[in-house]
């Protein structure tokens, strides 16, 4: 197999890898806030219960392998409801599995940021008459984003590499294709191309995040 054919086949996989990456971020970043607020709920009996439920959710998501979770999301509907699962369900299952898992990690990062905010910021906002919503979106959230950016970068970089776990569901993302070519052609080159691809992808992510960090460096 010529190098260019190999590259063309892998490029197909790269597009899918990038697809998993962006869709997972698109869903898990906001979902993380929901989980975070659920985790921090503690007002009244209902709040307590919600808090416990989300705590358990995070615990399970972080405590079991992502690959196993992907399998559960993919095969679960068949075993639970007898739903027929096939090629159509493969991609949604991957995005759902990744998003649910990453939301748990993001939730804890958000929580660390929110809880690190000095109480004085809330008190000043209260004194100035800001509503709770205004306080969160205008005063707290912008500062939280700045604080959590390095931790989020870590997680996003991990996600780039974790996309290869879709291999477990035989989804033809880059790593799956690379492995297929290596096995069928007895040629090691696809792994090297894959490594270079992941590395460059992460380099771009790191540079982009650093750029955002610098943008937010106008205050501390």
């Amino acid at each position, binding site marked *: 197999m010529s190098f260019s054919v190999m590259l063309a086949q892998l490029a197909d996989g790269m597009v899918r890898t990038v697809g998993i990456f962006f869709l997972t971020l698109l869903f898990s970043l906001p979902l993380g806030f929901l989980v975070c607020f659920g985790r921090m709920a503690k007002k009244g009996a209902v709040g307590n219960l919600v808090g416990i439920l989300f705590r358990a959710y995070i615990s399970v998501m972080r405590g079991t392998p992502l690959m196993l979770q992907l399998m559960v999301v993919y095969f679960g509907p068949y075993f639970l409801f007898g739903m027929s699962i096939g090629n159509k369900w493969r991609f949604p299952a991957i995005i759902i599995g990744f998003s649910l898992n990453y939301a748990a990690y993001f939730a804890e990062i958000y929580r660390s940021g929110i809880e690190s905010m000095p109480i*004085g*910021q809330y*008190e000043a906002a209260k*004194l100035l*008459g*800001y509503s709770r919503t*205004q306080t969160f979106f*205008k005063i707290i959230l912008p500062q939280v984003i700045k604080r959590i950016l390095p931790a989020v970068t870590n997680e996003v970089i991990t996600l780039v590499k974790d996309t290869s776990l879709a291999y477990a569901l035989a989804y033809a993302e880059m790593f799956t294709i690379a492995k297929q070519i290596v096995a069928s052609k007895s040629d090691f080159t696809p792994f090297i191309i894959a490594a270079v691809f992941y590395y460059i992808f992460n380099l771009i992510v790191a540079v982009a995040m650093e750029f955002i960090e610098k943008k937010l460096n*106008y205050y501390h």
Partner: protein
Amino acid sequence: MKYLEMDHVKKSFDGLEVLKDISLSVEGGEVLSIIGPSGSGKTTLLRCATLLETMDCGSLSYLGESAAEIVDGRSVYKKPAELAKIREKFGLVFQSFNLFPHFSVMKNITDAPIHVQKRPKDEVYKEARELLDKMGLGDKERAYPCQLSGGQCQRVAIARALALNPKVLFFDEPTSALDPELTGEVLKVIRSLAQMHITMVIVTHEMAFARDISDRVLFMDGGVVALQGTPQEVFGSDNPRMKEFLGRYARL
């Protein structure tokens, strides 16, 4: 007219009684200083007055409008919507400034008047510039809090509180986080506010300052008002606790 009235205020934290039946009132235009040793409950009293802390017992009202009343020996607060209206009547300057670090000086001052009070932008900006000039910070409107000295930050915080046109302005040890030089510039600003007859309640450890600018001084000790009166009366008092307290300052 009584701008602030607090009666029979009691507050405990985990069984420790910090405020033991305190009553005070402030007339419009009056400057009241609250002095006393650390742990005497000054800051807690201020936090109760500004609704940052809920009283166990006691009533609280601003310009005749009640925020909390005593029912069966407990404080019963008004509904959140009514409390929000009462919050418009006072401002607070914190010991640690609590400026919003991601807002420029100008935005720190103008954001609440524009987005909370919904006042016209032009008018708010014009007033904010006048305030900054008054604070000696006319050239700092674009700066961020992290670029300012502590004294400058505190003056911005004072401008921010004033921009909402409060009826009563509280100060919680406004100079305790500042070195003597910066303390001077902040005290100068507060002094100028006193001359404009802005109603103020100031918790402070600056005795000479309190004696100078106050119409009335309140000496707190162990969660009660041990002494109150004109600065002459309080600072010249024979009360042994007061003498001991002042003596410690004299020795410094």
